[in-house]
Structures are given as C-alpha cells and as structure tokens.
C-alpha cells in the first residue's frame, strides 16, 4: 500500500510538471513565466522528496524556488517583462525536438526498472559508501559524509565554481551604490511581522548548517537560507538599510574566506604527510578527525555560498534601470 502511494504521488507530480512547462511555453508575460518556474521548482522539490532524496529536495526548494525566483524578478526589473509575440514559435525547432525525443525514447528501453535494487548503479561504490560511513565517519547523514569526505575534491571544485560565479557577476554588474536616500514603502504589517521572521530564518539557517551531519542539511542549504534572511530584510526595509547591516564591501572577502577555509583544511592534512583533504590527519583519532574535517569544510562552504548569493542579489538590486539612448 505504501509503495503504491509513493508511485501515485510520483505519477501525479510528474504530470503536474509537464503541465506547468507547457503553460510556461504558451505564456508571453515573463512575470507569469517566472512565477510558473518557481512553482515548477517547488513541485520538483516535492518529487525529489517522494523519491527519497531529502537533501536534494531541501536544496532545490531553497535555491530553485527561493533564490532563482528573486533573481529573475530582479533581472526583469532591469529588462523588459514581456516577450515579443511575433517570434515565438518555430516549426524547425519542433521538428528537431521531436527527432531528438524519438531517439531518447528509443534509448529508454534499455534503462533499468524504476527502483530495481539490482540495477548497476547500486552495485559498486554506493553500498561501500554506506558501510564505510558507519565504520569510518560515524555520522548518520550519508549524503553529507560522501559530499564532504569521500567526494571532497568535487565539493571543493563546486565551492570554487560558486565563488567564480560571484566574481563574474561582480565583473559584469558591480555592486552598485545606493546614492540617494530611498526610504522604504511604509507597510506596518510587513514591518512588524518580518522582523521576528528574519530572526527565525537566520537561526534556522545556522541549525541547518550544523545539523547537516544528523539529518537533511549541510553547507549549501544553510548558506542559501541564511542569505534569504538578509534578502528578505532588503526587500521589506529597502536597500539603504540592508547595506548598512551588511556592507557590500565585506561580501567578496567573506566569499574568498569561505573558499580559503576549505582549502586550508585540506592543506592541514598535507602538513601531516597525508593526502590533500584527508581528514584522518586532523586529530589523533581518525573518526573525530573526520568529524572535525567535515565541520570545517561545511562551514567554509556555507560561508562562501552565503556571501556569494547575497553578493549576486546586491549586484542585481543595486543596478539602476538604465534606459537605452
């Protein structure tokens, strides 16, 4: 019965996803398309939850549905919020897409059945990871263990990627300066309610950061949630006050500090004659060394992601609307 319920939820959520994308193809008003994309991200987060991917659902909800929607709305403020109706549909594109789709459908026939425990993907490394996590690292969340310890190099690369994105947005847009005094629009209800909500959001971000070893969570989700608190403050109370709370100049330095924390944790193992990012060398007992290494590394990731996300938001919101001459 429970298995059928999972399948039923799976089937209906996927059908919703197709309907949402179909609706967003038809729409020309880009605000509507942005909101539909936010709904798409939320429904796909629910789908990930149904497929037992709790960390992924968390990240998709925070990043895809939360931050990307705000980012697209900020970009639409600086460009135009509608689409040119004449240039929308193309028969050649439809033909290409149908051809590619047919080829992919043909390839699907060889895929393993959904949920098959004997599929090739479950055979080699994955059972080892689950077993080794219990023996050598001893934290409940296997995904955090694999992310931070077994596949630590990839996560280091990802942290550098998000830092590079921050650098690229800085080069393109700059963080702007709020020149004239822009008082926020007066809204008593929002002002009163949002202040304790921001406190709750920040505490929740810290909780997610440090609880990532035991349940769903980790550095990425925590960084995004923590940045969302400040973005909410900036949206409700105006940029001028937000930039007084977190000055724009500190954010690139914090991002670099996050990447540096990650790298230095790896270097500490090199100093003890062990490979780069081998946490066993960080403490006398290998298991507590792993715990310390994962803690430091996730802190570095959280710091880098928080400052980069806030930096990107500052770049978009601080840009003045320039009308083309």
């Amino acid at each position: 019965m429970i298995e059928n319920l999972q399948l039923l939820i799976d089937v209906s959520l996927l059908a919703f996803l197709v309907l949402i994308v179909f609706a967003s193809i038809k729409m020309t008003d880009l605000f509507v398309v942005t909101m539909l994309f936010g709904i798409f991200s939320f429904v796909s987060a629910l789908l990930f939850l149904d497929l037992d991917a709790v960390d992924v659902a968390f990240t998709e909800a925070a990043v895809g549905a939360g931050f990307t929607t705000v980012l697209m709305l900020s970009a639409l403020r600086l460009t135009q919020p509608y689409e040119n109706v004449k240039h929308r549909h193309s028969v050649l594109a439809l033909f290409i897409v149908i051809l590619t789709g047919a080829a992919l459908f043909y390839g699907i026939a060889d895929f393993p059945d959904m949920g098959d425990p004997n599929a090739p993907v479950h055979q080699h490394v994955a059972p080892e990871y689950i077993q080794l996590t219990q023996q050598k690292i001893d934290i409940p969340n296997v995904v955090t263990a694999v992310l931070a310890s077994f596949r630590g190099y990839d996560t280091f690369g990802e942290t550098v990627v998000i830092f590079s994105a921050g650098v690229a947005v800085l080069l393109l847009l700059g963080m702007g300066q709020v020149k004239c005094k822009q008082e926020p629009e007066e809204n008593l209800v929002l002002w009163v309610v949002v202040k304790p909500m921001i406190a709750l959001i920040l505490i929740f971000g810290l909780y997610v950061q440090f609880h990532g070893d035991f349940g769903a969570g980790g550095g990425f989700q925590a960084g995004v949630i923590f940045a969302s608190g400040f973005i909410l403050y900036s949206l409700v109370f105006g940029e001028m006050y937000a930039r007084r709370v977190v000055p724009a100049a500190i954010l690139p330095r914090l991002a670099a500090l996050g990447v540096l924390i990650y790298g230095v944790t790896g270097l500490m193992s090199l100093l003890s004659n062990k490979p780069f990012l081998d946490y066993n060398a960080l403490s006398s007992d290998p298991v507590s060394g792993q715990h310390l290494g994962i803690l430091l590394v996730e802190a570095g990731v959280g710091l880098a992601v928080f400052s980069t996300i806030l930096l990107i938001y500052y770049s978009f919101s601080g840009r003045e609307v320039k009308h083309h001459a």
Partner: protein
Amino acid sequence: MHELLEHYNYWIVVILMMMGLYIVIASSNLVKKLIGLSVFQVSVFILYITFGKVTEGSPPIITDNTDVYSNPLPHVLILTAIVVGVATTSVGLALIVRIQEAYGSIDEDEIHDMDDKDDFHIEKQV
C-alpha cells in the same frame, strides 16, 4: 501498463527535456531561453534521482531500524549540479542585463538585426 509504469519517470523526463530544449531553441527572448535551460537541467536532475531510488528504501540517513537505503551517490552529484545551475543562471542573467543596456532589447532577432545594420554601416563608411 506495468511496463509503462516501470519506465514512467523516464518518459516524463524525456518529455520535460525536450520541452526545455524547445524553449531554448524556439523562443527569441533571452530570459525565456534561460528558463528553458533551467527546465532542461531540472529534468536531468529528476533522471539521476530516479536512478538512485530503491523500492521500499528509505532516505540515506542511517537509523537503527532500516535496512535498505536509497543510493546516496546520485544525491551528492545532483546537490553539486543544483548549485552549479544557480551559478550559471545568475551569470546568464547578469549578461542579459548588460545586453539590455547595450542594445535596448533582449529579443535575439532584434539584436541580430541591430548588429547587421551596424556591420553594414561600417562597411559603407570604409
């Protein structure tokens, strides 16, 4: 019917992928192209997570009374992919804002027309 249900996720993934690809190719508005790209990315995420699902498994968080866990490896890969996706989207949107400021429009056909007119103008001067 049973055969369809076994591969249902994969069918929908291909449909979503192709719809995302269609949005990228067919629409001339740059923001909508980015949205289509994000749809394509999410469909690939769904494919990977479907691979990792084990029937009657539980999320890969070790507790005392579960035996079968879903595969944690695709989850790790997709976590990285989601963050890289948002990085790409933000750089893409920053580029679109600069294009808007330079050309005055974010419609791809209008931008190409303006570029062609500029080239023609420069050739005439030479």
